[in-house]
């Protein structure tokens, strides 16, 4: 006991000391961006490629990715990943909607094992995490990293092979789950045999990105790069350790499960979302982010604190007290990096609110970034023991999970996709109104979804904590909120169909007059 208590204190002290050291280092300019690096973003030889002084690339902080041929290399793998991701998004959200409907129409579609709630819900989760979010995240990395490193993607064929393997594994995993073959732990249902394929595919994604990083033409790594590069290292470790067969059992397996499941959010989806927002917000607005030092705190704070959070999913359960407490305290400490990221991103947006009117992609991304702040604050509060007693085991946590994985990451990625596609194809979206429609469908749908589940879940939790109210009451009172969730989910699914249509409309060959298709440059 005493040893474990000491470990607990040790862990916190280590995190705290690390943060203190970081702040000391920043204030002493130990890790300040090399001014030379920052100013001169071109290696001396590169300037020879610039053919006219009139182009943007001759100025500091400007670089023509198109002319340098970087985008051209990335386009194919990114397009393939985006198409696949979009397909999984639509299928995954349909499964989500079906699962939601089954919670208040329990006898609907109940004649087949594959369509039972426990499997449909599992399919939804796995398809949106592995099919949609992971692939769209990797697509964003493949698009962004070469751009900030001023060098074309290395080994550009590998991601194509990776995508083929990845999608095959996701498809087979979905079929396996629908037929009852599952590893049986939340977020880890895909059978481990197929996880091997996913892991192999991951290697095909990692290698080009790391090779590109090593071959980069800039010295300084922009903040997006930290998140992306750390993410592609963290996620494989998490994934492999958590999926090791025959190693874990009993409650230890549960701690691994939630260490993984929460870190997928914290060390994989969050880096994707935050990294993406860090790139596209200043990119679209055309203004730098507020502070390098603050972004350092945001990143290392995330690494130090988020990594120790997961076990708050087992508060009040059969785990050592100190582990639960450790996760609670680290959850609360997440305020630090979240506020740091909030300062950097929201100040940049807040000083340039006009851009939200200008740019539909920015609208998605700024909304997503705001939701990161909200989701993290909510998560920190939710981890407190007193709050957790109410919200644990209820639909409230489902609402919170969607605030993070959907409102933050997914909506941010929507914006990124809308920004990337015209630059990949050289075409414009023919119906910008549909993008607008997509935005409002998912935002309104999500609002209904989130508030429905949060209120319903809270009431459900209160009912469950009151011994004088029978368990049935906690079920009956949530029904209207579950119906509201289905309404919200339907709007979101509809939004995804619009999104898929938008993606298809720009990727498919367009038979329209040249004059309409291309907009003359300035």
């Amino acid at each position, binding site marked *: 006991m005493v040893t474990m208590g000491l470990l607990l204190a040790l862990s916190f002290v280590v995190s705290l000391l690390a943060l203190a050291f970081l702040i000391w280092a920043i204030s002493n300019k130990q890790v300040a*961006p090399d001014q030379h690096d920052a100013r001169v973003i071109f290696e001396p030889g590169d300037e020879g490629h610039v053919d006219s002084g009139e182009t943007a690339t001759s100025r500091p902080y400007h670089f023509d990715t198109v002319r340098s041929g970087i985008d051209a290399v990335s386009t194919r793998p990114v397009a393939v990943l985006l198409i696949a991701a979009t397909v999984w998004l639509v299928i995954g959200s349909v499964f989500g909607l079906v699962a939601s409907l089954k919670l208040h129409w329990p006898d609907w579609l109940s004649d087949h094992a594959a369509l*039972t709630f426990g499997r449909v819900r599992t399919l939804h989760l796995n398809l949106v995490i592995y099919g949609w979010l992971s692939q769209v995240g990797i697509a964003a990395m493949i698009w962004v990293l070469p751009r900030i490193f001023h060098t074309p993607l290395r080994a550009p064929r590998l991601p194509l092979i990776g995508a083929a393997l990845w999608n095959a594994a996701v498809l087979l995993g979905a079929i396996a789950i629908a037929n009852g073959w599952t590893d049986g732990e939340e977020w880890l249902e895909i059978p481990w045999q197929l996880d091997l394929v996913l892991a192999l595919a991951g290697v095909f994604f990692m290698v080009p990105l790391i090779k590109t990083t090593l071959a980069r033409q800039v010295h300084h790594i922009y903040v997006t790069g930290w998140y992306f590069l750390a993410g592609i290292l963290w996620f494989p470790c998490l994934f492999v350790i958590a999926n090791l067969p025959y190693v874990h059992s009993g409650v*230890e397996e549960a*701690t691994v499960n939630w260490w993984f499941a929460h870190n997928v959010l914290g060390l994989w989806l969050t880096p994707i979302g935050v990294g993406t927002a860090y790139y596209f917000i200043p990119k679209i607005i055309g203004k730098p982010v507020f502070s390098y030092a603050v972004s*350092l705190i945001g990143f290392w704070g995330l690494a130090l604190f988020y990594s120790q959070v997961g076990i708050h999913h087992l508060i009040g359960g059969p*785990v050592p007290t100190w582990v639960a407490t450790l996760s609670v305290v680290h959850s609360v400490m997440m305020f630090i990096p979240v506020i740091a990221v909030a300062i950097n991103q929201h100040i940049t947006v807040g000083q340039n609110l006009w851009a939200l009117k200008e740019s539909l992609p920015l609208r998605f991304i700024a909304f997503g970034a705001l939701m990161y702040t909200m989701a993290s604050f909510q998560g920190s509060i939710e981890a407190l023991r007193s709050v957790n007693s109410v919200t644990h085991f209820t639909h409230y946590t489902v609402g919170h999970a969607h605030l993070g994985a959907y409102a933050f990451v997914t909506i941010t990625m929507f914006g990124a996709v809308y920004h990337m596609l015209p630059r990949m194809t050289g075409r414009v979206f023919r119906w910008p109104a549909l993008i607008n429609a997509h935005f409002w469908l998912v935002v309104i749908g999500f609002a209904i979804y989130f508030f429905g589940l949060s209120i319903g879940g809270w009431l459900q939790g209160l009912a469950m904590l009151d011994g004088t109210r029978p368990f049935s009451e906690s079920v009956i009172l949530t029904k209207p909120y579950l119906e509201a969730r289905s309404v919200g989910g339907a709007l979101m699914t509809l939004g995804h169909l619009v999104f898929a249509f938008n993606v298809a409309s720009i990727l498919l060959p367009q038979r329209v007059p040249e004059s309409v298709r291309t907009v003359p440059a300035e």
Partner: protein
Amino acid sequence: MNNYLPLSIISLGILAFATLMLVIAPGIEMARPEPPAGLRPYTAEEQRGRDVYVSMGCLYCHSQQPRAPEQAPDGERGWGRPSVSADYFYDSPHQLGTMRTGPDLLNVGARLPSESWHLTHLYQPRAIFDWSIMPAYPFLFEVKAKAEEGDVVVALPPGFAPAEGVVVASQEALDLTAYLLSLDRTYPAPEDGIRDDGYRPRGDAE
């Protein structure tokens, strides 16, 4: 930050540290060479039933981790004493669950020991609880004109039985029920049991 190598090493180091704290250290603390007295391994039938439980995704609505009385009235609801890590000695994959859309099931075998009740409830939960939102599992049952030798006929209240014939449980349904009935951790908690005691009243803590 300008170098990838330090970035990777520190990132992975932090993750390794977190793994040590959240996975390895509690794993060592909870590791047990022996099952607690009172807990027996699952029989072949119960294990098959457990596989059905896992494959149907029961854990997305049913937890298996009763909370302490200081935190929640689980004991009053008949869900059993607060569980400790040793209670899960034979469980893999674990099915602790994080949702209580339905009640906790760690002691459902003690609380609802009737096989025939469970068969009715699995066939159509709303035959018993009109408010229930649990899925029905008709595909685990078969409607026959007449029960044959060895068939287990499902008791169904009027209005839920098929117009003709009888409902007979499949082997999967019987296995699943056997697993549910085996869920019984009402033996005294082992003295060295580990669980989250963070909700115990602080009272006289000095």
